[in-house]
């Protein structure tokens, strides 16, 4: 019953690449549940399957075997256009490399997901401005990525991820390219979004002090969940 109510549910999820001898199991029977409103850090050594899991969580990818359910929907068995719709409606993405459209202003980048919702231009503009204000980028709306610092670019990316008021934010190493000061600014922003908007956040990180911002840390090892600890339980 608890698993059913979860926002994200992995039921013995496998993800395999390649054939025969060369076959690699990026995920080898992962069971996992994340509730609405949680802030989860995912850690683990390189190649342990963190990004693979995140791609499935974000409905970008589907399991080779097992069931992935998102909001109670069997998302692992949806076609790519339906998953695109799920992403557009409920999921925001933040990447390590920002992934903003080049030569496109901050405001236009933030508007992008709204375009695919068919929102009218005025509404898009207003929502984009609001999202940029929420990430503290007032006055930079018309700058292109090339004119912004790494931290600012990541803020634009976060604004773009939250402009649709998603249920889930998927962040794969969001601070991987940032210095310590910028890292903490971004983490404070994410924490605030989690607390104020009730945004569920799943975040991959290699740094323990980044993971500290999350309430819960899941450690991956060789495609398995090696440990799963919550601050509340520890305390």
């Amino acid at each position, binding site marked *: 019953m608890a698993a059913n109510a979860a926002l994200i549910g992995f039921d013995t999820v496998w993800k395999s690449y390649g054939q025969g001898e060369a076959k690699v199991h990026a995920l080898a029977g992962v069971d996992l549940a994340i509730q609405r409103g949680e802030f989860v850090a995912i850690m683990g050594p390189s190649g342990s399957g963190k990004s693979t899991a995140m791609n499935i969580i974000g409905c970008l990818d589907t399991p080779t075997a097992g069931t992935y359910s998102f909001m109670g929907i069997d998302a692992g068995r949806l076609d790519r256009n339906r998953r695109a719709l799920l992403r557009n409606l409920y999921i925001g993405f933040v990447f390590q490399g920002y992934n903003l459209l080049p*030569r496109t202003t901050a405001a236009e980048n933030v508007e992008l997901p709204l375009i*695919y919702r068919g929102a009218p231009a005025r509404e898009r503009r207003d929502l984009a401005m609001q999202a940029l204000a929420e990430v503290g980028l007032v006055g930079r709306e018309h700058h292109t990525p090339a004119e912004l610092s790494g931290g600012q670019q990541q803020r634009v990316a976060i604004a773009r991820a939250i402009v649709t008021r998603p249920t889930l934010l998927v962040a794969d190493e969001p601070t991987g390219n940032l210095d310590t000061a910028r890292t903490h600014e971004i983490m404070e922003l994410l924490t605030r979004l989690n607390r104020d908007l009730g945004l569920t956040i799943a975040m991959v990180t290699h740094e323990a002090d980044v993971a500290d911002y999350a309430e819960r840390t899941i450690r991956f090892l060789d495609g398995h969940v090696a440990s799963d600890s919550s601050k509340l339980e520890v305390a």
Partner: protein
Amino acid sequence: MIWETVRLSLRSIRRNVLRSFLTLLGIVIGVAAVIAMLTIGSGTTAKVKSDIAKLGSNLLVVRPGRPASTGGPGGLDQAVRPLADKDVAALVAHLTGARAIAPASQKQVRVIFGTESLTSGVTGTDSAYLDARDWKLVSGRPFSDSETRSGTGVCLIGETVRQQFFGAGEPDGEIIRVNRTSCKIIGLLEPKGYTGFGQDQDNVVLMPLAAYQRRIAGNRDIDNIYVAADDRTPTTELQPRVEDILRDTRRITPDREDDFSIRDMTQIADAMASATTTMTGMLGAVAGVSLLVGGIGIMNIMLVSVTERTREIGIRLAIGAHEKHILIQFLVEATVLSLLGGIIGILIGLALAGLASAALTIPFAPSPAVILLAVGFSALIGMVFGFFPALRGARLDPIDALRHE
């Protein structure tokens, strides 16, 4: 959403102005060629038709020598029996359904007035010639019957001859020298302009046939007999009657072929008009090939564009773009690109056609239908050749695309 996409594609075209322009070259050249061809072609057709109309409507022209179509020796053959006065006389006496019957012989001859000289087409004929060819006089009078009979040295001149010798002055009553004989100008012919082949129809001197034969040709041969049908008689009906009468007077036994030919100018007009249509059609097809090349250029550049923007496509897909959004984005971009080429091509094509029309003195006849068709066709090329690259972009896997460098 569509407007958004059009703006987006204009932006990406602007970003690579040179590359976009080079890509467009094929379409531009293709469309320009098609437009120029069709516009010049329809001008030429109009010109040919009006030329033939100027030659005289419902006109049959009899020439000595077997019809070329039977494969016999043509008009250049020495053995050809010329047409003679009695042939004309027989037609005048027996032919029904004709409005005018006129003999004519012609030659390029040097014409002199004062110190000026000009090589001109001198025709010996009678006053029925003007009627047969629907040719009017601007001033003066036609040959009188007695002038025709006696071969008096009088002549009618065309506008080009007038201009050459008299500029703004009056030619009537002046004496010009035609091949060492003098000739008094009694009238000025209405201008007819150039033929479609660039021949000046106004560089002519008409004189009585007898005078021409005696003083210029030195023989009594007749080169052509013009027979104009009256309003009730189609040339197709008149032609066999002319043939019968001529076979009779020329004593051609039934087992032998005609030693003369009869040309129907109306049919020639139609044939020439359809020939120009075929010509422009063929040239249009050649130009169409360059459109195909242009289309392949578009496909190529769109494939490059999709590859270059793989990461962008990945971002858009991750953010929730449907396959069709990506498809439409690149399809619109390809269409805008080739439409741009089409419009540039149309402008260049019209400019070329305008220049050519002025040079060839044919009417400049741009057809809105052809222009619309060219616009539609270039848009279609963009869609057709843009489809495969766009589909390739739309089908990308978002994870792979995001990983793309």
